[in-house]
């Protein structure tokens, strides 16, 4: 059963590497922000996998907080790059 987890973790790490390569090779700022959001989602999946391996429920709270901060920071950065200020 632990092999399934290890294979999944290796697949997610490969996806993270592909995302980082795509982030470096891009020029468009909005697609870069989208790539950052994608990286955050991958890290949430990694945290949940570690939680499943350790068979505890404590890490799922941390994963939820990470997803929430990811959502809010993406909205704030997009709003800043659209009109150069976040209050309005």
């Amino acid at each position, binding site marked *: 059963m632990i092999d399934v987890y290890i294979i999944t973790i290796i697949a997610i790490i490969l996806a993270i590497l592909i995302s980082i390569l795509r982030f470096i090779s891009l020029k468009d700022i909005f697609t870069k922000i989208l790539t950052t959001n994608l990286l955050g989602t991958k890290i949430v999946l990694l945290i949940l996998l570690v939680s499943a391996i350790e068979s505890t*429920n*404590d*890490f799922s*709270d*941390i994963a*939820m*907080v990470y997803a*929430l*901060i990811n*959502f*809010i920071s993406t*909205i*704030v950065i997009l*709003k800043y790059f659209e009109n150069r200020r*976040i*209050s*309005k």
Partner: protein
Amino acid sequence: MKDYIILRIITKLTIPLILLFGLYVQFHGDYSAGGGFQAGVILASGFILYNIIFGIDVGKAVLSQRMSKILMGIGVLLFVGVGIMGIILGGNFLEYNSFSFDSTSGQMIGIFLIEIGVGLTVGNVMILVFYAFNNEES
């Protein structure tokens, strides 16, 4: 942000869940990860999301800067008050053993009140930092 209908609807749907999760982290902090500091930050992040989407004037109508400062002071007063209550009841500063007839339940009451004070203070400090970065004249 009047014309971003997807953002507005998603925000209206998620803000109650964010606040509920913050309250869960606050009151379940004894048994799992969390506590007053983290709960305050999560509650403040929900409020900051509301401010960003609906405008800072609507957010100030919900919780003004003056009210936020008052709540921050109330949090610190609750913390110090519980500490001095331990001295009055015949112990050291922040000693909860004499709060109730039993030392275990006394410690539970003390930790509960302390965590509420920490959560109030940290959440309102985060909201005030957000307001300080978004003054009208800047």
